[in-house]
């Protein structure tokens, strides 16, 4: 069940320049039963002039402590206000939102996880989840701008990790697909999150390989719960909710089968 919850900041730290990790703890008894990799939450800046929640992917879910970890880039005033929170502060959160990756479809497969920049965080929870499914294999390829890497230790725990950097300072010089090709990585399915040009390239790559691609999309959101129709993406077929070719990223997504959306 979705709800708006006042969470407590249990950890906040900078992972790289402008990149922050924040852990939020649920009040006793309020934690959700299940959190899927690829799902997200809406975090409210502590600023009465900023009213909309900021969609941020779940990077880790720790059911035992009731903590969610988010990793975000300071992109504007809202994320800056979140980055300024201190341990013990309260942050309002709308969650858990979106569909997440369908683990059923990935079970027992060699899954290629592709993350670009701020698309990397949700790949950690996905890697962890796949790592817990017998017979699944995680092959992670992550793309960074330069040598200020983040979340690499976490990812290595769950599978093989290759790195691409735009400036070539670490791993392959180029993007994640350059690293995939350079290393001849093969897989049965690909899961990706990152900027739109990368997702378009991933879709094409998966088509060439004849494997399914599950991609996580981004769009400006207002409600986050499917009510405002702000966050649509064009679909190939008529969407069953909208009855036009629009699916709501916050509700039918953010994860889509690449073949079903026009990107």
């Amino acid at each position, binding site marked *: 069940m*979705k709800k708006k919850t006042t969470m407590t900041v249990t950890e906040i730290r900078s992972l790289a320049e402008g990149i922050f990790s924040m852990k939020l703890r649920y009040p006793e008894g309020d934690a959700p039963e299940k959190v899927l990799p690829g799902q997200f939450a809406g975090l409210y800046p502590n600023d009465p002039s900023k009213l909309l929640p900021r969609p941020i992917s779940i990077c880790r879910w720790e059911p035992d402590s009731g903590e969610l970890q988010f990793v975000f880039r300071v992109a504007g005033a809202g994320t800056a206000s979140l980055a300024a929170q201190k341990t013990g502060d309260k942050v309002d959160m709308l969650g858990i939102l979106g569909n997440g990756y369908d683990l059923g479809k990935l079970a027992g497969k060699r899954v290629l996880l592709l993350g670009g920049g701020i698309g990397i965080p949700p790949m950690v929870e996905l890697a962890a989840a796949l790592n817990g499914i017998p017979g699944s294999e995680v092959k992670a390829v992550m793309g960074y701008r330069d040598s200020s890497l983040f979340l690499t230790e976490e990812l290595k725990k769950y599978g093989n990790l290759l790195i691409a950097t735009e400036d070539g300072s670490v791993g392959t010089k180029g993007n994640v697909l350059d690293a995939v090709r350079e290393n001849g990585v093969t897989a049965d399915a690909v899961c990706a999150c990152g900027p739109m040009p990368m997702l378009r390239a991933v879709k094409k790559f998966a088509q060439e390989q004849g494997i399914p691609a599950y991609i996580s999309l981004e769009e400006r959101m207002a409600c986050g719960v499917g009510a405002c129709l702000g966050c649509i993406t064009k679909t190939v077929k008529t969407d069953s909710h909208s009855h036009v070719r629009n699916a709501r990223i916050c509700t039918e997504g953010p994860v889509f089968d690449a073949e079903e959306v026009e990107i």
Partner: protein
Amino acid sequence: MREETYRSKPDMTVNIAGVELKNPVMTASGTFGSGMEYSEFVDLNHLGAVVTKGVANKPWEGNPTPRVAEVYGGMLNAIGLQNPGIDVFIERDLAFLKQFDTKVIVNVCGHTEEEYLEVVERLADEPVDMLEINVSCPNVKQGAIQFGQDPGCLEDITAKIKRIAKQPVIMKLTPNVTDISVMARAAEAGGADAISLINTITGMKIDIEKRRFVLANRTGGLSGPAIKPVAVRMVWQAAQAVKIPIIGMGGIASAEDAVEFMLAGASAVAVGAMNFHDPYLTQKVVDGMEQYLMRHNIQTVRELTGAVQ
């Protein structure tokens, strides 16, 4: 003591054009889907009415994205009235809403007069309590301005809708006009049973780093707390101009805001964009209005309407 409290509980019911609502709190069209999405957060049985997202005779695709942008104290939207069309609406959304003990108000949009009338006709025998007509559909233009910006057009379409509507008709007014009282009177003259206001105020945001419009549609409708003083003023002006009931909205973020609209002359209110800030807001407004009445020893919420001095 409990007896006492019970007996002094204020009367929250209001009557809009013959339809009795259990309280004056509605949802603003387009901000509450068809109720389904927010039914996870609030018990729809507790609301005075659910006003649906605008529906047309056929499915509409709406505008390209970005469709929404945050601005200081509110947001811009240019959804473009995406909707699944009246058939799916009746089958799915109306069927869903009828499970609840609340009034259902269907917001209607169209590209042409005929399209409006088609939707109104299709709803004639459906379990719908009222119709709200959105005459500021961005695509429905007579020259540069919309139906809802010309008093003649407004009166005309109101009269045509009234001729065939089986349910009371609320005309929803746009604030993008020189004189809202002229528009309110035009709706009344056309036979409207009630008016609702305000729709969004047209606004724009530019990304100065990219030097581009933030919304694909360039302009969008401004809503949220930023517009409340304009909305309260217009409700007050409309209340001075017409006798039909007014449903007030624009930036309501609390029960206090709702009371302000009632004092200005509204008989009921609608909670809009601030649902996105607080999905529990409609319920909080109902509860808070009741508390306000008790604190001020006011017997019925109807006494608030137009009571500002």
